Every structure is written in C-alpha cells, then in structure tokens.
C-alpha cells in the first residue's frame, strides 16, 4: 500500500485517450466517472496506480483509466494482481471484475485472494447477467431466470457475493450501487484506507440484457423500504421515516426486520463493521429477500488482519537483512554448500 504524497491531480488526469465503448446507458459509465473523480483523493501519483481486469464488459475498465493497466484473461485478474502486489509494495493495485469473471470462471482466485488478504481493491460489477457474450444467466442470476441459455428458466442457485467473500474471511466487504455516486465514493474511500483485500460489490445495471435489475433499490417508490444503509456505530433502521429496524431475535442465528415502533430501542442492532467474527456480517448479508427487499449497502465488515503480500515481503526482507556479503559472494557460497570436492 502506498503512502500518500503531496500532488495535485484532477478527474481529467485519470481519463485516458481511449474512446469509451460500453453500450449507451450502461451502469459502467457511472462507475467509471465515480472512480475517475475519486482517484485524485488518493494522493497517489498516476504511475503508481494499476488497474487489472479479467474479461467481460466491466473488464474494459483499465483502458479508460490513465494509469497503468492490464486487461488480462477471464477470471485470472486476482492471481495476476497478487503477483504484482507481492513484488511491488509501492503500487496501489485495483482489480476490476464482474459477476461471471469473479464468481464463475475465476471463483477460485477470488476466494484465495480474499483469504490471503492480498493488498488489492477488488471492484466486482454485479449485473446478474453475462453481457459481453450477449445475455446468458450468470452465477448471480436468480433461479428461474429466462435467458438465451435458459429458455425455460435457470435452475442454478445464485451466489450471494457478499456471503461468499465473508465465507472466505475477507477483511473488508462492502456493497454499493452504480447510480449512487456519493455512496460509491464513500465506499471507495474506506477501501483505499484499508490494509489487505478490499472487496466491493457494485450493483450495476445492464440496460441491454438485464435492464432494471436493481430498480427497486433506486426508484423513489420502493427504495426506502428495500434499501438498508449500513452506518458504522449507528442503529440499523430504514424506511422513509426509519420505521423499520434490524434486530437479532433471541435464540436465532440470523437477523430479522421488525417495525421500529414495536421494538424496544435497546434491541435495535447497532452496526459494527469491526466485529471480528464474520458471522455477524454474514447474517447481515442474508437479510435480502429474493426480490431485493432489505438489501444492505455500505460497509459490512472492516477488520485488521495481516496482509499476505506484506508478510511475504517481511520474510524476504528479514532474510536479506541477514546478508553479510554481496549477492555474488553469497551465491558462490550457496553453490559450494553441502558435499563438495576438489579436483586438482
């Protein structure tokens, strides 16, 4: 993770010269704009920022950022980013991925990056559909989804990306929405200050193949009753007038939603993202119904845990610090270690 230096950059500095080629109306535009205008806040020079992506619509992202970037192969971005991060602690490394890229073909790399807690900011654009291949169901599509590859409905149970990340014991887990720039940037801000892996699920609208998938979270008529905004240290209440609250019913493992007016204030859950046991954040991640009612956004979990790449570097640095001679001499000694003999 990079230390900040005093530099003045603007949103424009982060726009590359490449023409952005997502479909008009795609949620990716809003995310790109939010990220580009957030970047100057990092205080990190552009050359020390790297965006690495996999394959999919979202993975075109690096081409549009005027930083270093790599558009790699399907699902492998977390692995490639791990190699970069482990060897270059001076860089700020960001991974951009989608629901198919991160959760289907690259599921293994995602969970292992998270369990290791590599210094990566992972932005998962979840549109619950395969867009680039023109509309097949994805690992986050709901059961029964009618798509090109499931004409009579999908029979796959979807992943809940937040639950999955928490199952891998990710140290930073958050969710935000493409259209809410202020919220999105607040999550990016928190992620940028986190040591280790920061996993951010961004609900993103694919207006061509899955239009309106998240409308209930955006429309004024529904959003207040559907969306739960998590704020650290505050009671979890929602609704236009805070008429709903989240409680932990005695004897149960999960959480439930109750009417605030009928609940003892002392029983309303106060959000604490720093709870060490991932079970709490996991319970939060299970709140939404199939129709997205009771979807929490914000920071589910943010705990301190040693970052893999830091630990690896520490081992290397510790070994290097014990060197008492030059590398050539050390290597000559290594070659000559063990049983050797001399022919005169």
């Amino acid at each position, binding site marked *: 993770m990079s230390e900040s230096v005093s530099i003045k950059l603007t949103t424009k500095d982060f726009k590359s010269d490449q023409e952005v080629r997502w479909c008009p109306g795609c949620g990716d535009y809003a995310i790109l704009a939010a990220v580009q205008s957030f970047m100057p806040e990092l205080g990190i020079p552009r050359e020390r920022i790297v965006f690495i992506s996999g394959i999919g619509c979202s993975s075109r992202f690096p081409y549009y950022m005027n930083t270093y970037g790599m558009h790699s192969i399907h699902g492998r971005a977390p692995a490639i980013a791990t*190699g970069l991060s482990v060897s270059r602690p001076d*860089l700020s490394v960001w991974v951009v991925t989608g629901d198919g890229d991160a959760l289907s073909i690259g599921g293994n790399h995602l969970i292992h990056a998270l369990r290791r807690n590599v210094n990566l900011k992972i932005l998962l654009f979840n549109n619950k559909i395969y867009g680039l291949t023109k509309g097949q169901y994805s690992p986050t599509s709901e059961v029964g989804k009618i798509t090109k590859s499931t004409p009579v409905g999908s029979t796959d149970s979807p992943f809940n990306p937040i639950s999955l990340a928490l199952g891998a014991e990710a140290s930073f887990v958050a969710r935000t929405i493409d259209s809410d720039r202020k919220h999105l940037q607040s999550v990016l801000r928190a992620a940028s200050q986190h040591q280790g892996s920061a996993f951010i699920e961004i609900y993103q609208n694919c207006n061509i193949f899955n239009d309106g998938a998240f409308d209930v979270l955006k429309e004024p008529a529904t959003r207040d009753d559907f969306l739960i905004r998590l704020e650290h240290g505050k009671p979890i209440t929602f609704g236009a007038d805070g008429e709903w609250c989240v409680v932990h019913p005695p004897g149960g493992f999960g959480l439930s939603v109750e009417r605030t007016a009928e609940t003892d204030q002392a029983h309303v859950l106060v959000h604490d993202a720093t709870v060490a046991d991932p079970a709490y954040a996991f319970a939060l991640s299970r709140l939404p119904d199939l129709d997205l009612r009771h979807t929490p956004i914000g920071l589910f979990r943010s705990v301190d845990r040693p970052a893999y790449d830091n630990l690896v570097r520490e081992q290397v640095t510790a070994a290097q610090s014990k060197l008492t001679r030059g590398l050539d001499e050390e290597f000559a000694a290594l070659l000559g270690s063990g*049983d050797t003999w001399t022919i005169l």
Partner: protein
Amino acid sequence: MTKQVRQLDRVVIRFAGDSGDGMQLTGDRFTSETAQLGNDISTLPNFPAEIRAPAGTLPGVSSFQVHFADFDILTPGDAPNVLVAMNPAALKANLRDLPGGADIIVNTDEFTTRNLTKVGYTANPLEDGSLDGYAVHPVGLTSMTVRALADLDVSKKDAERAKNMFALGLLSWMYSRPYESTITFLERKFAARPELVAANIAAFKAGWNFGETTEDFAVRYEVKPAKMSPGNYRNVTGNTALALGVVAARVRSGRPVVLGAYPITPASDILHELSKHKRFDVTTVQAEDEIAAIGVALGASYGGALGVTSTSGPGVALKGETISLAVALELPLIIIDVQRAGPSTGMPTKTEQADLNMALFGRHGEAPVAVIAPKSPSDCFYAVLDAARIALTYRTPVILLSDGYIANGSEPWLLPEIADLPDLSVEFATEPNGPAGEFLPYLRDPKTLARPWAIPGTPGLEHRIGGLEKADKTGDISYDPANHDLMVRTRAARIEAIEVPDIEVEDPDGDARVLVLGWGSTYGPIGAACRALRQRGCAIAQAHLRHLSPMPRNLGEVLKRYDKVVIPEMNLGQLAHVIRARHLIDVIGYNQVRGLPFTAAELETMLEEVVKNV
C-alpha cells in the same frame, strides 16, 4: 584377514527395497561418498508415486541406481553389476535387469513365507536354484543390525530402520568408499536425537566390519578417480540445478525473482529449493492452482521482476491460456515443465518427453514461444540461464522442458565462477519513445523486435496492455485486418529473431553417414551408444538440440550432410514430425514410452542396424 583388492573401471549398483526402507537416502549417501573419491557418477532414482505403498509389495519397490567409473560416463548404466535387495519384492522387481553373474546382496530376514507369497513366489528363490547364475550373498541385514545395536538405547523399531545404514556400510567397504561425509551427514540429520546418530553410525560400522570379516565377501574393489577438469565439484540433480539456475538468473540480471508454483510431481522440489533462497530476493508463492501460479509469475514480470513458474505436463496444459496472454503482452516469463509420463495423470514419477508438441503448439491462435531443453542434470543450470536471457532480452515466455529422468538423476558438476556466467542485465523504458513525445508500448527494437519494458511506477509512461489484439506501435485495441496479420507475423518473427548457437556435430572421424539427433535428456544414452559404436569401428555422428524454438539456423544444412538421420525420443516421434515438416527429410524415428530412459545398449543395437544398412 587381508582381502584381495581388485581394480574395476566402472560399477553399477542398484539399491532396492520397500519405499519405507530408505533406499533413496542410502543411494544418495553412497553417491556422495563416491563423489568425494573423484569418480565420475550418474544416478537414477526410481520410485513409486505412492508415498508408502503397502509394505513388501511390487508396487511399493523403490530403487536408486548409481553408476561410477574412472572415466567420463554419460548414463546411470543399463544393467546393475550389484543389486541390493532388501526384500523379496525388491528382488523380483529388479532381477530381470541383472546380467548373469551379477552380485545380489539380499536381506534374508525379509524372505519369510508371508513376504514371498505376497509377491507371488511359491518357493524361496534363495533356495530353489533359480538364482544359480548369480553371485548371491545372503545377509541377515535386519537381524545383524538389531544385534549390533543391542547395547544402545533405541527401540527395536528404530534399530530395524537402521538396516539401510548397515547395507550402506557393507557396500562402502566393498567398494572402498570414504565414509567421513556419511558420518557428518548422520550427525547433522539426527542432531535433535543423539541416540539415532549413535544407532545409525553403529549400523554403518557394523556393515563395514561385516564386509571385512565375513568370508562371503572375499574381494574388495577399487575404482580409481576419473580424469576430470580441475576445480570444485558437487553432485547435483536436475531439479536442484534448475532452482540454482533461477537464483543465478536473479543474481546476473539484477531482477528479483517471483516463482509461482503449485505442488506437482516431479517438479515440486524446485519450489522447495527456491523457498529457501529468500535472501536473494527470490519470492515463492504457492498458489491455489496452476493457473494462479503462472498468473502470479506474469503479474510479477509486469512489475519488473523475473516471473517463473515450475510444473509438469498437466500444469502446462492448465497454464496454456496465460502463456498465450504473455505472448500477447510480450513480457518475460519462464515456464519450467518437468515432463512426466502422460496422458492425464499418467505415471507421475516416471519420465517421458511427450510434452514437446504441447510446448511448441499447445496454445490457441498463433502463439509462438521459445522452447529450450537441458540435456543432463547439471545442464539444467545453464539452460535456465539461457531461458532467462531469451525471456529478458526478447520479452517472451520461454518453456523449459526438463523431465523426470534428469530432474531426479544426478551427476558431478564443476562449479562455475559467478563472473563467468552471462550478464543478464536489462534496461527498463524510462522515457517516451514516440515522435510526438508520446509513449509507444509496442514500438520495437529493430534487432530483437522486443518492445519496451515499461514497468508501473515509471512516470509519463502510463499505458494499458491486454489480451485484445493491439495496434502496431501504439498498443491500442485494434481489429484492423492488416494490423492483425502484421502483429501475428511480427510475433513469429520475434521468436525466429532469437539468437541461438549453431548446432554442433560430434563426428570424430568425420566419415559418418548416419546422424543421430536428440533433444533433452536422451543426450546421455545416445552419447554412450555412439561411443560404444565408435569403439567398435562403426562411424556415427551425434548432434543434440538444446533449442527447440527457434531451432539453430544451421540445422537444415547439418541434416542434409547425412544419408540417414535417426531421432530417438521418449515419445511417439514429436521432434521427428517437426524435422520432417520443416526440412523435408525422412528421418528415422526410434520411440519408447516406458517411463524409463533409453538404455545405451538398446540404442547401440538400433543404431548399428541403421549404420549397416545405409
């Protein structure tokens, strides 16, 4: 009793026992003692994939063959002169390889009815006359070891386990080996348990003294030191040499190394060895899978390190897409493939050379890479350095094809002077290179066709790369038909532009009409066969390919000089196929895929037929 001492020029000994009997260790120690003496050596371990197969069974037999001589040798030997058989299974599994008259030292304690039945012996071969053609030495290895350790404070089990040291002591006496290094080794190995140091040393000495006193061993042998170039030597396996070569590449290039690897037989030892060398700024990442392993290596190369991944054939199959990405990104990357018998899981501990096609062609699209193959255990060191030179200079993935034979086999290695190793230093791009002050990530060096290596962290050179086809020079995404054609041809030309040394031909009398062409680990057996033929007045030329892609520029001209070209391979003719296609020569293939290296004798017979019929 003074015993007769007989001089020999070469001996092949095979230690064979249960996989839990410590035969690999015994063989290693005997090899080390032999190296101290200055003999030339070549070794061949042969073990099952199962860590502990059921005791006393044929699949559980593990063996270690060592060939040592007073002259320069090329192979671990075709047939053992001496077999040490720790149980009936070891005898049965190895007997067919023994020439008549060979010495067989058997551990009679294990020749019980139960153990004999287990491997299908209906009568005891030590008693039924079936071994009459051999010099059998029945020795109660286990019981004598236990008796020798009776006064020591060790359990019966630990005492029995020391029987391999009794056998080592006996063989060390028989062949007049210096044993100081073994004593030191035992003291180090069991430092935490002094009682085991004492037990193993006592067992070793009991074996030595048994040889000296028993009348069964009337002759003691000596093999004089070989004439070898002056200098410091060590014994080295191919896998260790590969790992040391990677460290050498780090030292000589100044670039840190990141190894991404996933455990796989027979390549895991490279990961084990490199994980010990962090002080050289060598980082090892044991990744979640083969794909992640190469991803880690490629990500590190993107950041300016030398990325390396080590694996075997199944792993290379999984890495194919990432190798293809590295071809498009034009970044340095070394992929080490320690080949094993396939397809699928195949025979993980057995050798084969059947990944050549995969290395050359096993990717989607036109995705040429450099391919290089070491010819012997110690040559693995230099092959990695050469792979690093190519990867760093030409910004390309390089596949290095070792195999199980040289990976686990060993030979003496004249240690190089560090300063004599090639300088692999590289320069990163630091300034814009375009006519208008812009940075063109795909503007090429006119000679090497390599693009600039502009690593993150370099101000002013921010750029994006990826797997989508790139426009010439700018590296922007391009679907232009003419540009794609140009880029495909340029990537191919870049590999062809790699400088590789001309192939050399060994044809001492210069009158051979038959050329035998090999690649990789077959160098030893082919060379030994050619020597034997020449000693009998049969002219034959030998050439060996280290560079499989690109191939040496003089290869076509060399091939055309001979009436017949023979290509022995441990596959069904993969190099032969390429040579036929590229040079329109009807080469003669000689192919065996038994999971074992060729014997010099079989190649000699085959080549003699060819020479006779030219």
